[in-house]
């Protein structure tokens, strides 16, 4: 306890006067603030870097290798040659499922590497499957010939993209093991060496059990968490919302509310209309999810 405290209290409203050495103290005080600021910046930067390059990758690897490998959602399309393309037919093979488009420059850079990999590993039970997000097959067919693609390619649809958690950036590449599970997801142009390393790991692993020892390549910094879409939410009348928990009254109430709320994404539409017109809009999705939570909590 400070023994001067009672005296100060007895002094009432009396204030201290500045001392002669005030200037020195002022400089000393500024120096402390400066040192404090430098220290703060150093500590924050240091912790950030440690977290980014050490803790986060370790946690991600741990999460990925801890049984967090979901089964690949079904893909059933017609390829650009008119043949049926069904992912189920590839069970027992290692598959690189590549979402791409002809207008996507990073995709064009990545594809020759995939063509090379198909050549190199096809005999070991490996295949690349390309799903183009172009609107029409015409440019895809031209591209296929120009780039001498040697693996099946189909023009995808929104549903396939949503089943795979929504394709928010191209290229997006999924690494699927022989057991039909997704082991890695890369968004953006990824070094062929990273994908090849993952393919080699998957080719060497058990075709029946989940491969806990798989280590996704982190070097490229494009490895992302695998989050798949909920079919009930994808096929919902309010796209993105799983309405199965709502009663008929709650559904109507939610639709009414979302029909009145304006979406701030810039579309000038009510949230309900925005969800229906632009399924990829994350702004309307978040608002709709929040409103659904309110309706569920209200219990009405």
């Amino acid at each position, binding site marked *: 306890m400070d023994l001067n405290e009672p005296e100060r209290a007895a002094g009432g409203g009396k204030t*201290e006067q500045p001392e002669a050495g005030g200037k020195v103290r002022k400089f000393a*005080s500024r120096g402390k603030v400066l040192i404090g600021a430098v220290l703060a910046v150093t500590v924050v930067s240091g*912790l*950030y870097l440690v977290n980014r390059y050490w803790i986060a990758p370790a946690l991600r690897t741990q999460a990925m290798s801890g049984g967090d490998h979901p089964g690949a959602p079904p893909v059933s399309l017609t390829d650009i040659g008119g043949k049926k393309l069904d992912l189920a037919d590839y069970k027992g093979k290692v598959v690189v499922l590549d979402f791409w488009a002809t207008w996507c*420059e*990073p995709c064009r850079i990545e594809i020759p590497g995939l063509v090379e990999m198909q050549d190199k590993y096809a005999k070991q039970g490996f295949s690349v499957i390309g799903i183009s997000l172009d609107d029409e097959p015409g440019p895809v067919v031209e591209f296929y010939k120009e780039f001498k693609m040697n693996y099946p390619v189909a023009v995808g649809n929104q549903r396939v993209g949503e089943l795979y958690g929504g394709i928010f950036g191209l290229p997006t590449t999924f690494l699927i093991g022989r057991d039909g599970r997704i082991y890695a997801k890369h968004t*953006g142009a990824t070094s062929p060496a990273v994908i090849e390393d993952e393919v080699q790991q998957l080719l060497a692993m058990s075709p029946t059990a989940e491969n806990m020892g798989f280590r996704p390549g982190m070097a490229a910094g494009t490895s992302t968490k695998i989050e798949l879409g909920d079919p009930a939410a994808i096929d919902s009348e309010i796209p993105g919302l799983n309405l199965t928990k709502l009663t008929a009254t709650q559904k109507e109430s939610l639709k009414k509310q979302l029909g009145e709320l304006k979406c701030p994404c810039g579309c000038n539409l009510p949230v309900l209309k925005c969800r229906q017109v632009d399924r990829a809009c994350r702004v309307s999705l978040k608002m709709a999810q929040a409103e659904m939570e309110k309706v569920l909590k209200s219990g009405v």
Partner: protein
Amino acid sequence: MIPVVRACRDVKFKGTMMKRPKLNMKTFFFTCIFVCLAAPVAWAQTPGQVVKAKVAMASPVARPNSIVRAAVVVEVVPGYHINDHHPSLEYLIPTEVKLEPNPQVTVKDITYPKGEPKKFAFSDAPLSVYEGTVRVDVALQLERKTPPGNYEVKGQLAYQACNDHACLPPASVPLLFSFKVVGRGAPARGSQ
């Protein structure tokens, strides 16, 4: 701003001679940890809308047979770019202002800015792109016999955005050009 801040500091710490609040090390330490852990989460978020666009009318009032001028102000989120209206490569999707047909209005001219050549990790040659804020000028020709009243011309800004390692699917932002047409006798500032 600086004098105000100084005056405020003087009042607080000099005039009344209050003690400077001491830096609580515990608070400082936990703040640092919070900032470090929160920052990557915030930076990792996928942007909802990477392009915003708004219409600025040169004048809200126009006369029949005149030209209505407007600017479409496009804002591209930092870190992303959209293609030039005349992209460097034929397969790239151009940025384009598209207007819905209107019996009283015809599109006289749409002027796009020149893109900036930029080299990306994924491209061998520089690509002509738009970044930051860009402006597209639109000129609409009103028909000679346009009746007075309020008019709205709908349209959209179509674009395809990428950052330096991935591309987003093509998207569009709705545009609305609103103006009032007045008779020949009424004032119509800004129209030609």
